[in-house]
């Protein structure tokens, strides 16, 4: 597609303005992380630290067993993501590409599971996991993800319903069964939305702290997000270490996003017609 110079300039200005809005608070946070706490809350505010305290990051990392937390976070994030992608694509395929008895009612039930706030189902859920003996393990955070979450099923269903009906008919004539069609034909063309679900899930799980807070107990099981939250006390918050860990925690999702970008676009070649 070709573009006139004028419209290019307009686009750059728009991109720049939005970038400022999004980046300004982040940059302020980034620079604050290098300040002393006294300087960070000083008034009038200064953007740059008068002295760069790089050791803030090291001190923050050492203040809690963050190495252990990191490993737990990776475990939970990777395992839930694989589980979500597999289970949600299956379930979404079922809802999007078939007509069957009770489909609408089941789909409505699926959606409605998103509508009850977690506050009130949490305690019953805790009791259930306690019955399973799963409390203070990572299982309550991982296992349910292998059975499809409503949010991602819904998302993927929407994508799948955008694919024309005659698409699988050609394959069926070839004698392939439904699972073969799903795995061999749909999985490849669903790649962008699979990646999308993966990225979104990774991010949610990586930052989730309510789940870990409720289901985990001793510190050897904590995740990064929970360690981060525990800088916040009842009467005082350790702001600087908190900012440092927040910044460290941003890095992995950003790297993954940068890599994933490529694959999200790649889908275009899978000529959907």
């Amino acid at each position, binding site marked *: 597609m070709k573009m006139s110079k004028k419209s290019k300039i307009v686009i750059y200005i728009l991109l720049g303005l939005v970038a400022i809005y999004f980046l300004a608070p982040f940059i302020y946070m980034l620079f604050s992380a290098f300040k002393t706490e006294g300087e960070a809350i000083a008034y009038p505010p200064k953007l740059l630290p008068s002295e760069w305290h790089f050791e803030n990051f090291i001190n923050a990392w050492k203040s809690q067993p963050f190495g252990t937390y990191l490993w737990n976070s990776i475990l939970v994030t990777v395992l839930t993501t694989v589980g979500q992608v597999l289970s949600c694509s299956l379930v979404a395929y079922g809802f999007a590409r078939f007509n069957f008895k009770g489909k609408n009612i089941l789909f409505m039930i699926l959606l409605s599971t998103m509508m009850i706030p977690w506050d009130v189902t949490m305690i019953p859920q805790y009791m259930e996991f306690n019955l399973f003996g799963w409390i203070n*393990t990572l299982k309550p955070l991982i*296992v349910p993800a292998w059975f499809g979450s409503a949010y991602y099923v819904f998302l993927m269903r929407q994508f799948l319903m955008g694919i024309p009906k005659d698409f699988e008919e050609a394959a069926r004539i070839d004698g392939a069964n439904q699972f073969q069609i799903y795995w061999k034909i749909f999985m490849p063309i669903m790649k962008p939305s699979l990646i999308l679900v993966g990225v979104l899930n990774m991010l949610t799980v990586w930052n989730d702290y309510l789940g870990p807070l409720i289901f985990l*107990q001793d510190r050897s099981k904590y995740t990064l997000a929970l360690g981060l*939250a*525990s800088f916040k*006390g009842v*009467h*005082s*918050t350790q702001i600087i270490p908190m900012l440092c860990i927040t910044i460290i925690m941003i890095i992995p999702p950003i790297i993954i996003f940068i890599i994933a970008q490529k694959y999200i676009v790649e889908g275009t070649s899978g000529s959907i017609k």
Partner: protein
Amino acid sequence: MKRKIAVMCVLALTGTMMLTACGNKKDSNDGKTSDGKTAIRFATWDVADDVDAQQKLVDKFNEEHDDIEVTLEAYGSDFDTKISAGMGSGDTPDVMYMWNYPAYADGLEPLDEYIDKEGDDYKNDFYSTLWNYNSLDGTTYGIPVGFTTHSLFYNKDLFAQAGVEEPTDDWTWSDLQAAAKTIEEKTGQKGFAFQMKPDPYDFEMYLWSNGTAYCDEDGQMAGQIDSKESQEVFKMFQDMEKDGYAIATEKNGTDEFRAGTAAMYVYGSWSIASLNEDGMNYGVAKIPSFDGKTSVSILSSSGLSISKDSKNKDAAWEFVKYWTGEECNKARIGMELPVLNSVVESEGIMDEPEYAPFYEMLEQSDGHTPASFLIEDWSEISENLSLSFEQIFNPSSYMDVKDVLKEAADAQ
């Protein structure tokens, strides 16, 4: 082919991770660890550095006891959510920090029998006021671990800059107002900071200091919270703010004080550590009094409680004793004000100028019971009061003190 290998790799990786994640066994439910020790779960609300220090103390206890294994669980500001969830599902930590006894007492083990067994000397070493704050209706539910009263923090540099004499222990509120006014005029910084949305639990101390309270002994608010004395207190704070030399802060005021934008504020000992870290030139004095009356402080106390559902109460008590004993009190200096007379004496705490006022406030604050112990459904009443106070102090409303307090009393 390449894809197949990739899929295989992912599956293999997932499998291994699954094993690591789900393989490690839980320290089963019956309160025993895998090697047969009695397992005690211990929940704290402290954060980062303090937790590290606590972990060391826990480790020491575990070393000294072959048969008990304590694990520390740190929940920070989400402590209440976690404990509530634990109690709701019958899986509460065996030992936990506690302050809000009215809300949790039903889930806690009464400790009087345990205390009696230890003898009078054990009980008497604690500052006596603290026991009131760790019991409900005459039953003790917690052993004091730490406390703080409130005192007046002031910025010595701003006082010097304005040429105002520093606060003394016999200051009245009019002295404070005069000083604050001068500081505002001379330095351009606010003379005094207080919270726009104070926790009603804390704020009651000013009513006590002026000879009234939120409610009477039966928890009735009418005639108390809307009394003349009570109105005076609220009016005084509102006027200071309206006159422009005091500021009602969005948070607790520590940020403003640290930034040097407010010369004085009243707060607990929580901020001492960060003020020292800043290298700030500050002083601490007793809270000013209302003319001719004794100023009184609220007590924020922390105690250690045992869960009613605990399966190993004796081991839990063993740990509570350790945690509230001399050794740990000493080790916690700097994080927590010691609660034992013997430790305060032996460590010379009263000679430390930033700590002493908190003990002096403690000594003159005996004999008051916070409304939270008297009013049923305090947590909801408190939420309503908090709104009432904000209506008075928020500059975008500045509602009439008398009306607001009357309405608050009627709403009960």
